[in-house]
């Protein structure tokens, strides 16, 4: 085998002798050698440089800059008036000195994230099981479900504001058929967040369903057939055969839903402006409101650093879940 012989010649002198003695690890010995050559070549960095430069200017630089701003009482109109205040913005954050208190914002975010993750998974998984059949009707249904996800958030948010209109909205019309009186969906503290969650689920379940459909397509049919032969009913087959195989996909959905829900902004901006009061002011919305409405740029930067930390933690979980999808047990 050509590749095997090449591997022999490419093994560096520093490679432990055991690697040469083993008859099997020829490919592993070949891989690091080639990778190392690529990474030590200045030409390779020349190719990477444009992307890295853009990433540095538009992502890494601003991220570091955000950390800097969070240590200042920042006046963006006249930066000569900026004042270094160290960790004061973080202190305000922990003590709740600024309205709305940080812990309350975190609670509002958690409410939205949990509802989106649980709701999205619970609705999308049965939907995917239903739509996995390959008939024309179900393929059309898949497209229909996914269609909501590709609609623009701004435009559909405005449509849903009218659906939730307390006097003329479709939502209250439907409720009136069941004898339920008018609800001020977006103006009432109790209903504002559920209303936004309903809209957000409508927008997101198409995407999650497609991920589950992809997962279902990779499952082993033999295990299901064996379960049926052993007398399993549909529920037992799902719970004991299908569901365990889907776990990596469920974990993936949980992580990406958490990250995207944490960073959600448009629907809050368009539908409630964070209100009533601060009842729908999540962490993502608060960044905007503190920086651009209340002009507390330094405090907003501190919020951004916290959001960054949470997102990094979730991204690590996401990376691990992706690996577990690549290498299913």
């Amino acid at each position, binding site marked *: 085998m050509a590749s095997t012989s090449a591997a022999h010649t490419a093994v560096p002198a520093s490679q432990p002798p055991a690697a040469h003695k083993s008859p099997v690890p020829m490919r592993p010995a070949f891989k690091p050698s080639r990778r*190392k050559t690529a*990474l*030590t*070549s*200045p030409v390779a*960095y020349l190719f990477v440089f444009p992307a*890295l430069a853009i990433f*540095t*200017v538009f992502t*890494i*630089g*601003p991220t*570091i*800059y955000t950390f*800097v*701003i969070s240590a*200042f009482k920042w*006046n*963006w*109109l*006249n*930066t*000569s*008036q*900026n004042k270094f205040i160290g960790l004061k913005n973080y202190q305000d954050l922990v003590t709740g*000195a*600024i*309205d*709305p208190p940080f812990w309350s914002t975190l609670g509002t975010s958690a409410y939205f994230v949990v509802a989106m993750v649980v709701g999205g998974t619970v609705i999308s998984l049965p939907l995917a099981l239903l739509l996995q059949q390959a008939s024309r009707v179900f393929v059309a249904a898949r497209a229909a479900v996914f269609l909501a996800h590709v609609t623009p958030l701004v435009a559909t948010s405005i449509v849903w*504001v009218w659906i939730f*209109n*307390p*006097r*003329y909205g479709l939502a209250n019309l439907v409720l009136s058929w069941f004898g339920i009186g008018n609800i*001020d969906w*977006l*103006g*009432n*503290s109790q209903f504002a967040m559920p209303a936004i969650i309903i809209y957000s689920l409508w927008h997101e379940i198409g995407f999650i369903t497609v991920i589950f459909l992809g997962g279902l397509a990779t499952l082993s049919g033999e295990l299901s057939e064996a379960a049926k032969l052993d007398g399993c009913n549909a529920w037992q087959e799902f719970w004991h055969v299908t569901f365990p195989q889907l776990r990596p996909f469920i974990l993936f959905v949980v992580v990406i839903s958490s990250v995207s829900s944490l960073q959600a902004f448009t629907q809050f901006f368009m539908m*409630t*402006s*964070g*209100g*009533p*009061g*601060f009842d729908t*002011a999540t962490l993502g919305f608060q960044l905007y*409101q503190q920086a*651009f*409405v*209340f*002009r*507390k740029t330094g405090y907003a930067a501190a919020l951004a650093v916290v959001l960054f930390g949470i997102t990094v933690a979730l991204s690590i979980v996401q990376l691990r879940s992706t690996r577990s999808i690549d290498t299913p047990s």
Partner: protein
Amino acid sequence: MSQHAFSRRNFMHAAAATSVMAAAAAALTACGGGSSAASTSSQSVPADSNEPATIVFMEAMSSGAQKEALAKMTADFMAKYPNIKVDLQEQPDYGTLQTKINAQAAAGTPPTIAQVYGNWADEFAKSEVIVPLDAYVAKSDDYKNFYDGIKADLKLSDGKTWMWPFNKSVVVQYYNSTMVPEAPKTWDDFAAAAKKASTNGVVALAIDPGSSSGPAGGTAMFEILAQANGDAVFADDGTPQFTKDGVVKALDYLVDLKKAGALVLGTKYPGQVALGGGTGAFDISSVASYPFNLKAVGGKFTMGVAGLPSGPKGTANQLAGTNIALFAKATDAEKAAAWKYMQFLTSPEQMAYWVSMTGYLPVSKTTLDVQTFKDYAAKNAFVLEATKQLDNAKSLPSKSWVNQASGSLAQALTDAVNGTSSSKDALSKAQDAATKAMKAAS
């Protein structure tokens, strides 16, 4: 090739260090530089050199008659002064306008002039990005003819004049004359008429309180009611005083209307939508809503317009709309050109045209003598009544925290009207939040 000369680790370290240095350099530059203070020339009126100049006017007159009228006035100005080019940079709404001005000022490239609210101007003045106009107004003949309320509105708490008037309005009542034959004269009459009209699916009044990000018309109406009861929601220095008797009574008044089925809260101009759709009897809104309300009604019935009812302590109103601020970064030639343009917009002839097209109010008394205005007022008698209020109407104090504090008031209004809190408790909570906002801003 030596691996030590260019290792991946070295490269990544170099990239990271470069990023940190770039950010640190940017931060240091930002800390040390920034917008310069108003130049010496900004303290006096630059000489009119008739040099060619291009000025940028950032504004939010982006639709309907407002857009059309401003475009024509600007074209007329450029025809009169061919050496001056005015670049109208229109924004879709005031929120976007504020964001754009801030972004450009932060980048060191603000417009020459822009529409601003008083609380924006307060922040701009403190940050030294706009120039005071005292020296300018001292030389203006038109300024002397401005209504007293307008003159007061151009000043900030330091007593200096920082703005020049543009689109000013007060609040009036629009009503469906089929449901309400005659405009109520007092707020008690208004409540009685509203309750009487609220039958067969009609809810007489729909208002939008706004949100924590900013109050809307419903909160403005509440603030006017409180003032008519003898207690302004803010003291002159901007201190919130939401728990005063007159304020609590104003909120109780709205709660009572809600309980009687004569009031509903909504968003996106709910009063205009309901009045136009025949499901509302009143819309309490700015006089500048006139063309929009007429369009919403569409000739289905006769829409009456009248001044606001009076309360126990007389008639109260709120001066609304924006002024124009001149930015410090402009060159002397641009400042001189901008000053000419600002004066042109408020000259009696131009102002009369502006009023007749948009429904805004004339800022100077001499405008009332122009034939265009006389013709307009002959068809719309309410304009004269509304204009009289320009001597007394006051806008909210020009303090940077007032918008956030009014957001707390909007929340109190929502809570009390929805029945989740008593008027007193809701206002007490709002007072605490507003005081917190004031302290944080100070």
